[in-house]
């Protein structure tokens, strides 16, 4: 497929392709971070994760409509406001769900799967009733669309760069919160041994609620960011859920580093294979590889060493 191209042309295509892989990597990390906290740290299988993302996307949609009709001068920057609102909207709904549903199911992980799946169906129908069955178009500020020409032949999409920057920022924040703050220490303590954590004076119920809220809030931010690259409709969340679980499970459920490593492996493999093979074949090969590796290493790529 490369006959008739100059070396320079090939070089720039490969550079752009490398970049495409990095963008996919950022997208994967962003969608998986929230789930990694909820599934990895709390052991809750949240099938409604995609719907929390779409809630963030709808918040962005509302925000773009409201701001462009009331204060159009603010429009170029509305995306930041939208992301913050999305975080709080999804986070608040997450805490509500934890309080009303999840907390009764902590000892029955398989039941959470069913309950959250039901929740995802309910949320989809709510979106459909409120926003209509059709997809909505989120208008983006001009500066987010288009590409930066690095050289004459290498072009890098701006929204890709934006997602990458956002992913790095959120990852740093999560890392600091989970591993460098006292609250994060409490979260990890509760997950490792709930009874002991309670015995030393940690309010485990509160920790659970905020952790679940944090995970859902990050999902909301991710959903808000994905209005740049994907669709916003009642069932769009379903587009992300499989990849998200794949990344988290493959990385080793309890390890945030594992999530990042697995997002990197899967995204690079998929994007490279998509370039040389066809789209569907690439997906099949990626899934097969993941299945084989999980057969050899059922706990995922990275494992926390915990005394049971």
């Amino acid at each position, binding site marked *: *497929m490369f006959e008739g*191209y100059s070396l320079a*042309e090939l070089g720039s*295509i490969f550079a*752009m*392709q490398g*970049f*495409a892989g990095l*963008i*996919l990597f950022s*997208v994967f990390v962003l969608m998986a971070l929230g789930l990694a906290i909820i599934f990895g740290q709390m052991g809750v299988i949240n099938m409604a994760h995609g719907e929390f993302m779409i809630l963030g996307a709808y918040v962005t949609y509302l925000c773009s409509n409201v701001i462009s009709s009331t204060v159009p001068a603010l429009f170029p920057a509305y995306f930041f406001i939208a992301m913050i609102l999305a975080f709080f909207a999804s986070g608040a709904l997450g805490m509500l769900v934890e309080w009303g549903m999840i907390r009764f199911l902590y000892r029955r992980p398989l039941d959470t799967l069913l309950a959250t799946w039901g929740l995802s169906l309910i949320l989809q*129908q709510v979106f*459909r009733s409120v926003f*209509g*069955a*059709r*997809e*909505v*178009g*989120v*208008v983006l500020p001009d500066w987010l*669309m*288009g*590409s930066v*020409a690095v050289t004459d032949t290498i*072009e890098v*999409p*701006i*929204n*890709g760069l934006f997602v990458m920057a956002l992913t790095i920022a959120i990852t740093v924040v999560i890392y600091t919160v989970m591993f460098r703050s006292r609250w994060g220490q409490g979260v990890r303590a509760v997950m490792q041994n709930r009874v002991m954590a309670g015995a030393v004076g940690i309010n485990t119920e509160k920790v659970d609620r905020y952790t679940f809220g944090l995970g859902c809030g990050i999902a909301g931010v991710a959903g808000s960011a*994905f209005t*740049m*690259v*994907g*669709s*916003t*409709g*009642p*069932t*769009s969340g*379903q*587009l*992300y859920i499989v990849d998200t679980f794949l990344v988290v499970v493959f990385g080793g459920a309890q390890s945030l580093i594992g999530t990042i490593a697995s997002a990197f492996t899967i995204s690079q493999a*998929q*994007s490279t294979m*998509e*370039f040389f093979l*066809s*789209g*569907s074949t690439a*997906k099949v090969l990626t899934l097969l590889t993941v299945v084989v590796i999980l057969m050899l290493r059922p706990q995922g790529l990275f494992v926390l060493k915990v005394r049971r």
Partner: protein
Amino acid sequence: MSSDKFDAGKPVGGLPSPLRRKLLLGMAALPAVGLLPRGALAQALPTDAVNTTKLAVTDSTVKVGILHSTTGTMAISETGSVQAEKLAIAQINEMGGVLGRKIEVIQEDGASDWPTFAEKARKLLVEDKVAAVFGCWTSASRKAVLPVFEQYNGMLYYPTFYEGLEQSKNVIYTGQEATQQILAGLDWVTKEKGAKSFFLIGSDYIWPRTSNKIARKHIEMKGQKVVGEEYFPLGHTQFNSVINKIKLTKPDVIYASVVGGSNVAFYKQMKAAGIDLNKQVLMTISVTEDEMLGIGGENIAGAYACMKYFQSLQNPNNEKFVAAFKKMWGANSVIGDVTQAGYLGPWLWKLTVEKAQSFDIDKIAAASNGIEFTGAPEGYVRVHENHHLWSKTRVGRARPDGQFDVVYETADLIEPNPFPKGYQ
């Protein structure tokens, strides 16, 4: 949904009322001049005579079914068809119904789930004994209900453009089959844009694959080249790799049949990657005004779509249709190709019933051949003996406001050819 919402005799046309009254009086007088007084129509055609197969037909009413997904993934696409079918039925009722009988609608929800479609189809045919069903959208749902319609001898009016390779006594296909949508568009882009190389990209299921198979044959028969053919799973959201591949192969035309949520991702990412659709020719057979809502006009402006109908089409039928549609379903509603095809269904059925002077399925199936509908928003359509429609192919260019400029239409109606020889 209850049916009485639509037979209240609500004016739909939007004419000033004295004029409408005159028109109605005139219309009411027509049968008197011709054959029979209007009120006597139902008695003149006793139910025993027009309905020998125990369908749900009385002296004053006839029941039909609408079977689409109003919940689930496909609700996005099927909503428009439901609206168009209800509009057509309301208009027909306002004109006095079919053979003097008012149409009552029984609506069922297929819920985007193919077994549910089959089950609801059986319910409509066996329990409700409806005289016709307007419904289905995806090929998968049509394939699921087809055996039911054939077993219980029902009549389905199917609105979507589809891959062809099917023909049934019990189905009227009001959308275009693949060759009607593809060939004329390819010829146009070759002639107008001097296209020599094509990159085919689609979602991975039967319709894009069959369509691209036909497109590839046609392209290669004319000595042009396909430089790439790619499929992505339904719901795929990352197209950066294939966009690089498109940049590498530099095709004259990108030929796209990506559907659903993937569509939005595909066009947004192309724009972000710096592919300017005003310079790079892109032709799609899967984006209508409906899809443009989600994609955003600014992300797809400049692309060409190959359809048989666009909302911006200029003819008196269409102006009336668009006005009535917006009056019934809101000023912001948009009308895509399939929505218009959905609107044709009830009208074609009415015309067929009147030609056959009967509601019996067998008589309708036989009478369908040659039925003409001059009031079609797309202009004029005629039913072929293979139960598909003769219709024109048109090319539209996407505008930032979500509408299309019609840039080309075929001079003649294109013959439907669901089993194209040499293309399989």
